[in-house]
């Protein structure tokens, strides 16, 4: 009677085991080397994750990170009435630019102690310079807003996308709108800002929108240029 052959199987078992021992047993035998391997893999994973975060940084291209897409702009809200340029216009209270999805209330801006134009305290709100004519009056009216905050796009992030012909609506305290048409979009280096062209007297009702642009200087935490949009009242 032949005995069941468990023995060879049993004897073969250890040999097979030795040739194909599972990695955990090697790990158990060499814990230090395994730890180093794990460490290396972890380092690679962290590096890859960092690279992914870097390339996925928000901000560009400009059109994609818009705070308010065009499609969300309720149409028909501005109800402009034909108006003539006047000596006195009501105070401006809100600004709408459908072409770039801007819809903001307007704060009041003065001058800083250094004599520069104050900027709105909130990056998501634009402001009217109270030293300039009111929008709709004869003269050059000034509205400024941020291109961005420390983290995200500001109210005038897409200002540079405006093109001649785009319309700008300024709601006045009496509920009426002064309507402007863009005539030009400029980028001026701040070091050579044409103050006379932007703030100086003009004989018709004009509106200038100002924000930052160009290269950002990380040393001084400043954009090196300003974007200035010229517009003239539509009558």
């Amino acid at each position, binding site marked *: 009677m032949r005995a069941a052959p468990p023995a060879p199987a049993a004897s073969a078992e250890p040999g097979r085991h030795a040739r194909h021992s599972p990695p955990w047993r090697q790990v158990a035998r060499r814990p230090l080397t395994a730890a180093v391997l794990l460490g290396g893999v972890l*380092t690679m994973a962290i590096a890859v994750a960092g690279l992914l975060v870097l390339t996925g940084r928000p901000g560009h291209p400009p059109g994609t990170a818009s705070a308010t897409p065009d499609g969300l702009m309720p149409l028909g809200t501005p109800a402009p009435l034909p108006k003539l340029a006047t000596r006195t216009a009501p105070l401006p209270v809100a600004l709408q630019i459908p072409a770039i999805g801007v819809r903001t209330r307007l704060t009041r801006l003065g001058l800083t102690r250094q004599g520069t134009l104050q900027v709105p305290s909130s990056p998501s709100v634009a402001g009217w310079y109270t030293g300039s004519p009111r929008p709709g009056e004869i003269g050059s009216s000034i509205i400024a807003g941020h291109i961005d905050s420390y983290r995200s796009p500001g109210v005038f992030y897409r200002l540079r996308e405006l093109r001649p012909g785009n319309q700008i609506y300024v709601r006045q305290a009496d509920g009426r709108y002064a309507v402007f048409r863009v005539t030009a979009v400029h980028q001026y280096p701040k*070091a050579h800002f044409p103050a006379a062209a932007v703030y100086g007297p003009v004989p018709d009702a004009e509106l200038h929108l100002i924000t930052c642009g160009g290269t950002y200087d990380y040393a001084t935490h400043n954009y090196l240029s300003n974007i200035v949009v010229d517009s003239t009242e539509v009558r």
Partner: protein
Amino acid sequence: MTLRLNAPRRWRLRRHGSGGKGAGRRSAGLAMLLGAATLSLGTLAGTAATASASSMSSGMGWVRCAHLSPNTAPVDIYMYSFGDPMAMDVLRHVPYGEVGMYMKMPTGQYSVAIRPAGAPASTTPVISANFMVRAGQAYTVAAMGPAGGLRLQALNDRLTTPHGTSMVRVIQASLKEHHVTVRTGSETLASNLAFASVTPYGADKPGRWMVHAAGDSATWSGKVKLTAGSIHTLVVLDSSSGLKVADLLDAAGSGMMPHGGVATGLGGTAPGRAPSPLPLLAGLAGGLLVAASAAIRLRRSRAVARHAR
């Protein structure tokens, strides 16, 4: 007391379609205009100091028209462009004392013609003149003088003010008073200014001032508000009771001009300096090296274990 002229009228050069009876009439009118004696216009010597910098680059200037001849009936004012013969516009039925709004016009030479209100465009104008629009400059084209000696004058309108001041000039368009003196506060803006003449602009302190105009027999007083950075023309006119003064706002800007650029960005969307990927790439390489050498060690230790058996 009114300080304003009649409601400003809209007047913009329009391009007319070519062909048709109208076009023929217009070109006939233009030819006639060109043939008409060119009258001497007011000084057009464009001084760079009066130009608005914002419109310098765009090749546009501003023009407004005025009827300042006291005994001339209402008129139609025609304007033709030399550069674009099809462009023409008419300001109809302009009465004495009316000043139109400024219109933005391409630079170039223009011809202006005046006809009695309602007269066909084909008729010979009472008077016509040529003038040049330069980039960033503003003009008032005015019918001046008595009906018998009507003339067209293109005045160069100022578009700059010295820091913190207002600029004011006076046009004397009263025939009832041949010479008029105009004062604001203690400043004399015009002294015995003769009919149909104009003072240069003078700097004035911003504020609310009483304006006094005095001729030989009639006087007028009223208030005028001058803000820093604004430019005014005071027009002395005949009124039913004698004199009146109209205050025209020629141009306005910021009273206090901000210095330099505007700090409207905090850099959150700045593309410039993304953190360098080099350390991360080095980390990746280092990790790869360490992991690879550890893996080789493990394999080697397996091989050693096999041999040991």
